[in-house]
């Protein structure tokens, strides 16, 4: 099963290497890993999506905890959370298809951020399901390339 771990780490160089190295050498599968700033400049938040059964997730969590620069780990898979990722997609488009593509963008609340004679670049945000659905819809037009950020997550509710 896919788990989402929200990991607060010291904002120091090398921590990404330590986390990535830990996953590699212990044979855990990272589906995505996003790291970025938080409201506190001293710490960063990593959102790690990892695939594995309960036993593997238990080990992943405990081994991560052994890293001195890891401050807090929350498995937010079960919690009521907001998950988002951002995608940029370049889709083949000429004058005859551009209109239809723009309609699709509207439905997914995506926006066109670049335009050329035979393609458009679309930017979209959403959870994984929405992104997948949009990609499926766009596929018949010809997807030239895309780049995804991976998931970032936050638990809902007041804190």
């Amino acid at each position, binding site marked *: 099963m896919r788990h989402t771990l929200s990991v607060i780490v*010291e904002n120091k160089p*090398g921590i990404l290497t*330590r986390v990535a190295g830990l996953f590699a050498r212990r044979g855990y599968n990272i589906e995505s890993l996003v790291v970025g700033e938080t409201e506190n400049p001293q710490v960063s938040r990593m959102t790690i999506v990892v695939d594995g059964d309960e*036993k593997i997730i238990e080990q992943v969590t*405990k081994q991560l905890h*052994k890293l*001195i*620069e890891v*401050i807090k780990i929350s498995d937010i898979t079960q919690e009521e959370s907001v998950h988002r990722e951002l995608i940029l997609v370049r889709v083949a488009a000429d004058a005859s298809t551009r209109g239809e593509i723009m309609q699709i963008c509207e439905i997914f609340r995506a926006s066109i951020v670049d335009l050329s004679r035979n393609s458009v670049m679309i930017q979209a945000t959403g959870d994984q399901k929405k992104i997948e659905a949009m990609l499926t819809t766009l596929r018949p037009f010809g997807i030239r390339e895309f780049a995804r950020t991976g998931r970032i997550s936050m638990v809902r509710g007041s804190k």
Partner: protein
Amino acid sequence: MKMTGAQAVVASLQEEGVDLIFGYPGGQVIPLYDALYDSSLRHILTRHEQGAAHAADGYARATGKVGVCIATSGPGATNLITGIANAYMDSVPMVCITGQVPLSVIGKDSFQEADITGITAPITKHNYLVKKASDLPRIIKEAFHIARTGRPGPVVVDVPKDIFTTTIDFEYPKEVRLRGYAPVFEGKSSEVDAVAQAIAEANKPLFFIGGGVGAAGASQDFLRLVEKYQIPVISSLMGLGAIATTHPMHLGMVGMHGTVAANKAVMECDLLVGIGVRFDDRVTGLIARFAPKAKVAHLDIDPAEVNKNVFTHLRVIGDLQWSLPALEASLRKIFVEGQRSGGWIQEVTRWKEESPVAYQKSDDIIKPQFVIEELARLTGGKAVVATDVGQHQMWTAQFFPFHQPRTLITSGGLGTMGYGLPAAIGAQLGQPDELVLLVTGDGSILMNCQEIATAVEHRLPIKVAIMNNNVLGMVRQWQKMFFNQRYSHTRFANGGTDYVKLAEAFGATGLRAETPADVPAIIAKALETEGPVFMDFRVSDDENVLPMVPAGAPLDQIIEEVD
């Protein structure tokens, strides 16, 4: 107080109570050695950086203090790697200070540059690259704190040369503030009570101890539990000596070369309580058949060890100095004398008597096991024993009686040939009043024989027994048992090395025994001789470590004889 970074390193080491360090100078640490020149810190110059790392490790194991070693950047630092990995696997507290090229040229493939924090990330508890000279005192404070608390381990501090020469305002921090590091000393009493309940209800309980018991200084607490509640004990290699291996409740070492009684006990027990252990594959054999009838409990300081290899029903996370007395207190309330049914003690004692570790004695050729028995007899078993890795290591574990924690200095997890001599040097320097023996093989001793020079320089009275069979015995044994006797590259051709002359070349004493009758006299002579003595025992080259459970087999698949 104003001082240079190098002086700050020395002052910080002294603040940590360090009185002995091991090292080897080189380009980027010249400023540090310059500061050492003026200090009262005792520095032991080894003859190879690997020797410095193993010596710091041996010193730490023998004393319980943090071992410290220094090396220069690049090759100096990479030569420490085996020693760091070795300490990491066996949870030995160490701080390694490495020189680094100046900050401005890091990342330029500079002369003698290696990314040592990158290289050592998987084999250290933590590591640092110092980027600001004013951070030095805090980083060294943290390094020692991390190395010695919780589950101990090695920490590397990589210091660029210009950091050593920058002047700073030195003030040693009073406390450590690490948000992401807070090892649990005192855990949950409910967890302890659950284990106590399981012990009270068990008919065939078994304690399985590892290096953690001695490392935590919890031997006495453990012994009280054993004696009061009459629970038999098995031990990993690392756990030998935590309580006396001659204790009537001690069934010996478990696992691949464990005793028949210990392995049978694992298969038959109904409760296995692992204490300060990590359920290594050399212990468990086939995991699916490990302790098949038992509920498993696990007491350890490191939560990540729980359920890593063996599924445990009960766990107690915390320092053994807390959990073992707590377990005793909890048991005292609920344990009913005579409630345990079935004669478990009689059963394990019978196994122990029926199948002791044994070997075919000989009057013609020296048996290595005999040498170890004689070493034990002639020293009364009162010694700190270092070993290298291979057959001699297993025979030492099987035939030498260990009475105290910190008396067996051996590379358990990593299995590092070449560890023994430098580790014995570290142990002897840490325990100057104890007799230090090194049991080694002709393969292992050559891997760090340059350290004979270090032992001679400091007149360390280490007595070294070389089990010289002219073969790499453990590999040869596997070739014999599992590879159709195809002895690929396990014999040293041309009669090997003259170890007496080798010792003499370094200024040490060399002795040789060629027949069993020579053995006691040679050992006696070595014990009387001052300084380091190397005993070349020309032992049988076709000896097997038995019993043996093949790798990956269940513990009841014990081979007791090989033709």
